[in-house]
């Protein structure tokens, strides 16, 4: 658990990412342009936001499978609060975000109060929140949002997509919290050895509660941006999002057994996957081929990480 070792995985990943960027830029002259890269940033923002919280979750040795469903539910609630309940849109956004946060808090309570393993608890809420989304929506889409609302998902600030600013800001905050604060150290301690952490006086349950609540909040935030980007709400929004998020986090070097992982790693993992998806598509590789390459890269990166650990007597 030394800083040096943590740095090593990220170094490998950074080199891999730079290599991928160089290769992809050579494969297609459309890839390494400011316009394309910013656009890709826009497309990965929703996954990126949720991945920040997921890094914390996995570092504690947990998992949150319900984030995609929370995204779907928050999206639907945004539409319902605005159109059916008649709240002004800004208020509807806040209310929907609050519900997303509560959904995350719900996960945290089930996990900490009832000692349900996170995998089981969030598997259940994956179904619960998606079911609520479908039930509440009455299977109808909500459309016709005012023009200003599309700013969050489609607008630009100083030439950079709005959500990329948000993602950058929150990534920095998450990085600081995980890397430099007491809360961050508590997070690692919970994941490394929960019993030891408990006996060391760390507030294990409170830490977890905060983290799952944050996951709900960020999934809700991603929902608002997603709705703004695609201009409609559907109850199936965010289906499968949890897999994209977990893939990015794990590729970023966060150990699924807990106690290990960084925000920088997660960011690199997400960038690598997005670059591969986009770059391969631009150089004429079809969708199915791209998935194969991503699978191979994922396995290679994880094997490399595992070998590395063994060599160091990990």
């Amino acid at each position: 658990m030394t800083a040096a070792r943590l740095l090593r995985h990220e170094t490998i990943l950074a080199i891999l990412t730079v290599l991928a960027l160089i290769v992809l830029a050579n494969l297609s002259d459309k890839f390494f342009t400011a316009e394309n890269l910013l656009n890709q940033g826009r497309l990965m923002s929703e996954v990126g936001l949720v991945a920040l919280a997921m890094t914390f979750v996995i570092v504690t040795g947990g998992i949150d499978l319900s984030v995609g469903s929370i995204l779907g539910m928050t999206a639907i609630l945004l539409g319902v609060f605005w159109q059916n309940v008649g709240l002004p849109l800004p208020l509807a956004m806040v209310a929907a975000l609050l519900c997303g946060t509560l959904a995350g808090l719900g996960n945290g309570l089930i996990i900490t109060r009832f000692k349900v393993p996170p995998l089981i608890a969030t598997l259940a809420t994956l179904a619960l929140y998606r079911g609520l989304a479908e039930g509440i929506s009455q299977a109808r889409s909500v459309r016709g949002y005012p023009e200003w609302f599309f700013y969050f998902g489609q607008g630009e600030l100083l030439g950079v997509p709005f959500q990329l600013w948000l993602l950058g800001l929150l990534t920095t905050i998450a990085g600081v919290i995980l890397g430099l604060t007491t809360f961050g150290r508590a997070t690692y301690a919970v994941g490394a050895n929960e019993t030891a952490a408990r006996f060391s006086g760390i507030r294990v349950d409170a830490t977890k509660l905060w983290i799952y609540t944050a996951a709900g909040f960020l999934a809700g935030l991603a929902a608002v941006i997603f709705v703004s980007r695609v201009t409609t709400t559907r109850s199936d929004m965010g289906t499968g999002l949890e897999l994209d998020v977990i893939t990015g986090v794990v590729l970023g070097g966060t150990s699924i057994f807990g106690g290990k992982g960084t925000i920088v790693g997660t960011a690199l993992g997400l960038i690598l996957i997005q670059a591969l998806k986009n770059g391969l598509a631009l150089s004429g590789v079809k969708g199915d081929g791209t998935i194969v390459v991503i699978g191979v890269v994922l396995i290679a990166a994880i094997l490399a990480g595992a070998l590395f650990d063994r060599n160091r007597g990990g």
Partner: protein
Amino acid sequence: MRKLTLAAALLGFGLMSGTALAGSAWTGGDDQATNPLACDATPAAAAAKDYDGGSPTGAPDRAGKPIKVVDVPKLIGIGYFNATTKGILDAAKELGNVDAKTDGPTKANIDEQITFIDNYITSGVDGILFAANDPVAIAPVLKKALYKGINVVGYDANSTPDARQWFVNQAQFNGIGKALIDDMAKEIGEEGSFAIVTSTFTTPNQARWIAEMSAYAAACHPKMKWLETVEAQEDNNLSFNQATTLINKYGDELKGIFGMTSVATPASAEAVTQAGKCGKIAVVGLATPNAMKPYVAKDCVKSVVLWNPVDLGYAAMMVLRAVADGTLKPGATSVKAGKLGDLQVINGSEILLGAPYTFTKDNIGQFDF
């Protein structure tokens, strides 16, 4: 033990709330106005409407020049879109000046489809053909394509009109609704009960058909009883399970199942076969002939309703070429589509492929898709 009970209770609640909160009309229909056809075969008159499609900005002159076209269907790897792809490639070959390829997500996912189109805009194509997973969600990225001077034509599943130039309509919704309900009434009688297996309640085509079916049944077969609509997401396994659940849930009351997708119909037929209910429960639905041949041969399924998706892809490609050449302009009343002849323009910016087609034991052998 308590943990498990809690998880099960949560899971159960989640599943139940999905159905318990559903509305009173036929679930799965949309809330747009319906226009049921006459109970006999009187054709509907086409109402005149101004062009309401979009137009690309600063498109280069592509008349007669080679163009690069990408086709992004809802998903790839299923029989239906393989057939439209075949039609697109046939047309491209016949035209000789089109480089066409199909690429898209392996699941009918709005976000992935948007990303595919976005990437092809960046890579610089001349034309985009699409079948939308969601009419509104796909609109921003299609508008971006138009803004970049790309010709955009939809087929199979529409977007909002101003996000594309033309849409090739495979069959009008009320036509399909009438064909399905009439076929079902013929098989289970005027007082039979039936259920519907659809993709998702918000998938535009299926929602529209169900709404039209509901309206047509109310007008022309008022005693038929609708039991339930279930979602199966164009997933083979899920469709089979949903159909099996319906058979077990309603028992002898269930006389017929509608399959609303090319995945749900064969899966429902398989469920009926495995339940040993062939002849007792009719399956009527939309499907590709190849998937239905075994069930039609065994007399388990009598009518399969569809249009010809190869023709649909072919027409879409022909329309895109005509738009790129400038021969199809806003205000036109028909378009020449190669071997299909003149196709009629309807609803302002849509092109009608023709009347729906019912495959039966007598003719299904002639089709291979």
